């Protein structure tokens, strides 16, 4: 069938319009052949929000911002075109928050738990200040701080510079100069003493050599001495063995003495001998006293004396 030009044109235009419309709807993220579900949210401010901003539930995109309208009360009415057949429950909150580090915004919907909101209904709006907006809000403060710190730093630096300029520099220079001189002197000293040190080392060497010669000459003598020492130590060992026996025996005897065995033991442990001796002494004392006082009494019978 041969198509007329009018028909061709008609088909082209209709197809183009349909395809263009479908493409437009797809790019707008709206359902192609039915109206999207539109909800409205009122915000006090919508910094960073724009038409086409994603609307997310648990991180999944379910729609986008369709329009932003400034209301007479300076609040902003945002229309959200959402692609959710089951709708949103009562009490759902649409939160504007940063979705990345650079502060671009998205709307996250926290589902409520009530009955479904009818299409075209209103959600509650919340604005979540992101890190960057906070930073930019406090930016002046931070800048002031940084400025103050920088000023302080620069004043410190200039003070240091001033100190260096008046006097400190001279001190430092003289210090460095002293150090240099000291190093040079140490250097000279070492250079001068080099010969002495070398001589000392030589002497030490000689000494060691002599010592070595001496030991090699007297080796036989030394060996003999060591052998004698060995014999002596052997004798000492034997002696100490006998001593050990002796002391063991002695300790046995002493033990016996302690226990009061034998004569000595009895003598030491039994006080009766002492008592007897004591009594004897006392008696003897008395007797001698008696003899002194009355010699006649005892000497009466001695004829020789009786002469007197």
């Amino acid at each position, binding site marked *: 069938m041969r198509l*007329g*030009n*009018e028909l061709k044109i008609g088909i*082209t235009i209709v197809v183009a319009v349909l395809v263009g419309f479908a*493409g437009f709807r797809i790019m707008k993220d709206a359902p192609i052949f039915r109206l999207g579900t539109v909800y409205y949210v009122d915000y006090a401010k919508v910094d960073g929000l724009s*038409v086409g901003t*994603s609307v997310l539930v648990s991180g999944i995109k379910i729609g986008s911002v369709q329009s932003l309208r400034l209301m007479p009360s300076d609040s902003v009415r945002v229309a959200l075109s959402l692609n959710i057949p089951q709708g949103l429950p009562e009490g759902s909150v649409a939160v504007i928050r940063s979705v990345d580090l650079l502060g671009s915004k998205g709307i996250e919907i926290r589902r409520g738990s009530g009955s479904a909101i009818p299409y075209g209904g209103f959600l509650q709006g919340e604005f979540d200040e992101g890190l960057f907006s906070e930073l930019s809000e406090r930016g002046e403060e931070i800048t002031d701080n940084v400025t103050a710190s920088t000023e302080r730093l620069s004043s410190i630096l200039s003070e240091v510079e001033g100190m260096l300029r008046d006097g400190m520099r001279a001190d430092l220079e003289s210090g460095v100069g002293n150090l240099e001189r000291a190093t040079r002197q140490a250097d000279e000293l070492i250079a001068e003493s080099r010969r002495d040190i070398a001589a000392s080392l030589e002497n030490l060497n000689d000494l060691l050599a002599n010592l070595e010669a001496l030991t090699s000459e007297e080796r036989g003598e030394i060996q003999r001495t060591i052998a004698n020492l060995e014999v002596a130590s052997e004798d000492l060992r034997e002696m100490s063995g006998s001593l050990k026996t002796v002391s063991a025996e002695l300790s046995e005897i002493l033990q016996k003495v302690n226990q009061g065995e034998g004569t000595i033991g009895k003598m030491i442990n039994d006080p009766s001998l002492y008592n007897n001796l004591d009594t004897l002494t006392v008696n003897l004392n008395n007797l001698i006293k008696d003899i002194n006082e009355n010699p006649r009494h005892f000497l009466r019978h001695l004829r020789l004396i009786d002469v007197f």
Partner: protein
Amino acid sequence: MQLFLEIGKYSRLLYEAIRSATEFKTYRKNLFSEMVKTGTDSLGIVSVAGFFTGAVLTIQTSYQFTSALIPKSTIGAITSQSMIIELAAVISGLVLSGRVGARIATELGNMRVSEQIDALESMGFNSVTFLVIPRVVAGILTFPIIYIAAAISGITGGVLAGIMTGSVTVHEFMEGARMFFFPWDVAFGIIKSFVFGFVITSISCYQGYFASGGAEGVGHATTRATVLSCIYVLLSSFLLAAILL
């Protein structure tokens, strides 16, 4: 001097055309055949051009954006917005400068040198109404259609290239494309395509209508029609961007 003469002749031709634009009956039949030749028959080549432009744009953008800080959706945003604002209209304009401009200039030039235009005039036809108006109007009316075809095939090509090279997924691509999709961009593209349709067809008609000097003259007119159409497409694109954006 030559420049002012040319502008004057061109303006006069346009004036004649606009003056007789109401004589719809005279050129109705020609209009539809011109619309088919200019619009419907060009859809194929324009779609192919748009498709590959979009594909190349996606691949090259993803090649250039290697930073981890830039989300992949940016690729989709760049491809689709470039296609919608600029490339769909300009690429199709450049392609059709060759395809449509050359045809119009050759047709009218041949009619001129073989004295068919004079014959029409002597038969009492207004040659401008009969020959120029349908071509220019067809250009203005069909270029938006061609723009739509180029834009859609360009974005399709971008998406497919993204999938095939694995540089960007459909979801990422469309997310970026939607984030930077503004209805005004489409309107701007359509305005552009109206202008391009007018520029290409009117310049080609002018070159063909005033052709002279036999076969060589027709060739000369065709060359000039093609070259000037290209230049004025780019120039008018620049002016529109400067004025409207």
